């Protein structure tokens, strides 16, 4: 399955937040992942599981209270994890790796036209570019992505939510980044705008405007339709990674299974299904539980789960999961309810 070259490789990345009382919160705990060129990876999980922190950590651009601990981030073979923040900002962000934070569309400057913001973005990386060039470049990209060029001359308040979000995405790919990280890009939008955003991501991938995509959301049906692989995070750790189809229809980790239980799609038979919510809340990462971090909320918990440290197991197709039970034991347990 892996033929393309690896664009992003992360080895045992650990980052922590240091609170003002001096406590450490390990929000990303020994995370390793690989994304190949032309592939996309979805990251799923509840709020507070470290999805957004992982996205921030992947950029190699740390500012307090987030601190780098250990591990390596390789973009196209180049390690960016130990770099000076200023160099990261100038050389890496935007060109190598671009990041669309949550609610990015609300960050457009309301007092300036969209094109002024684009001029700022390009001039930081390409000093000396003239306004005329920048306008032409932006117009060409916007038209390619199906956005009207008139957007460039508008103020953000004149645009609808979906349009603002698509504008922000277009701006983020102006410098053709190798990796694009999108954090909940569609959760504040209605279904129709959401679909346009998704279509845009697909187009970006197909046209080769971005090398690979990391898509973070808690909406599994969306991930299933956008990304090749899905990675589930829980309490700062990866608990499962599989291709999209396997992750949705044949989840192995009890937590992924629980997430799949909360899917709502308008298809026949849904009304008779009772949504199964996972009881409880994720553990406090100031002092994470020893043993399996999901044990507290797991239906299939055994005394052993609470004491043994569980490592990621690898099974066929590069699929991994973090549970002490074997594949077959888990599948059997799910069949019996």
């Amino acid at each position, binding site marked *: 399955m892996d033929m393309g070259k690896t664009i992003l490789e992360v080895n045992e990345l650990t980052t922590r937040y240091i609170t003002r009382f001096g406590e450490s919160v390990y929000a990303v705990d020994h995370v390793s992942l690989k994304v190949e060129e032309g592939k996309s990876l979805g990251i799923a999980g509840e709020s507070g599981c470290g999805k957004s922190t992982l996205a921030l950590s992947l950029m190699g651009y740390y500012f307090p209270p987030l601190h780098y601990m250990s591990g390596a981030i390789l973009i196209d073979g180049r390690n960016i994890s130990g770099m000076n923040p200023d160099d990261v900002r100038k050389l890496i962000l935007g060109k190598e790796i671009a990041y669309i934070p949550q609610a990015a569309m609300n960050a457009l400057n309301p007092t300036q036209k969209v094109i002024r913001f684009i001029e700022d973005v390009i001039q930081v990386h390409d000093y000396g570019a003239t306004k005329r060039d920048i306008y032409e470049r932006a117009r060409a990209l916007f038209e390619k992505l199906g956005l009207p060029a008139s957007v460039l001359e508008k103020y953000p308040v004149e645009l609808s*939510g979906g349009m603002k979000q698509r504008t922000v995405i277009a701006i983020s790919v102006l410098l053709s980044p190798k990796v694009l990280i999108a954090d909940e890009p569609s959760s504040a939008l209605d279904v129709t705008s959401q*679909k346009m955003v998704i*279509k845009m991501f697909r187009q970006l991938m197909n046209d080769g405007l971005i090398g690979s995509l990391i898509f973070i959301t*808690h909406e599994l049906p969306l991930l299933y339709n956008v990304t090749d692989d899905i990675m589930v995070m829980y309490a700062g750790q990866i608990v499962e990674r599989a291709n999209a189809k396997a992750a949705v229809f044949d989840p192995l980790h009890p937590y992924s299974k629980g997430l799949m239980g909360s899917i709502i799609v*308008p*298809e026949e038979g*849904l009304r008779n299904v009772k*949504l199964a*919510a*996972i009881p409880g809340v994720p553990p406090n990462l100031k002092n994470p539980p020893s043993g399996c971090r999901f044990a507290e909320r797991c239906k299939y918990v055994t005394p052993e789960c609470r004491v043994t440290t569980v490592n990621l197991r690898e099974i066929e197709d590069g699929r991994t999961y973090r549970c002490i039970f074997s594949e077959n034991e888990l599948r059997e347990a799910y069949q019996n309810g």
Partner: protein
Amino acid sequence: MVKSKDVCLSGAGLTKVYGFGRTRTLAVDHVDFSFYEGEVVSIVGESGSGKTTLAKMLLGLTNVTEGEIYFQGEKRDISTQRKRREYWKNTQAIFQDPFSSYNIFNKIDTVLLDCINMRGGRGFSRERKFEMMTEACSFVNLKFEELTNKYPFELSGGQMQRLMIARVFLLKPKILLADEPTSMIDACSRATILDMLMQLRSEIGMTIIFITHDIGLAYYVSDSVYIMEHGKFVESGSADQVILHPKAAYTQRLINDVPKIYEEWDLSTV
């Protein structure tokens, strides 16, 4: 399922116009509806279709330009503050953004005590009030002992939304208007919140008016569905009828726009 045929809330020719002259916008355009007691009704439409304006009119938060609202068969009268408060005892709302629904200066105790007082519990003993608050919190899987003396902003989004439901539990209104109650919280808490709303419905038999853009959600929770486009209802009927056999092109498009997992998701339509 509660299915009495008493009309709880209805509207005739309800219209709302914002602005005037060149900027005149017809947000809600002569809509007629009748919501029955104990029913879960969904109003579905994309952004800008007038769902929230309709909700605001139903709650009495904005003036009605034209048309009438009837509450339990009688014309709704909220001309004075006293009458308005009386109406709000029976009509409550859960809003989209839990982070801005609370008064940041009030503690959670105050939030809940207000509800008890509003329901005529002003004279109850401290123990009785405490018991009621504990019951309300445990209904939504929160522990009152952990919440007391805290402020709402110390809670997570899902917890705040649950606290909102605890309020509704204490107030026991006839009508609950839920305006996108789950769009700002994650998929996992969403299931919990929906379950709680349904449980509340069967417990106190209220009418829930559910406003959403996600037709999947509407299908999961509601008995009847109204589809709204540009301020008008384009289709209405029972959930099965509307969502499994949609007639209007707009309904079909909305259904198409929700990401699917069991069938191919057609991206060419937008």
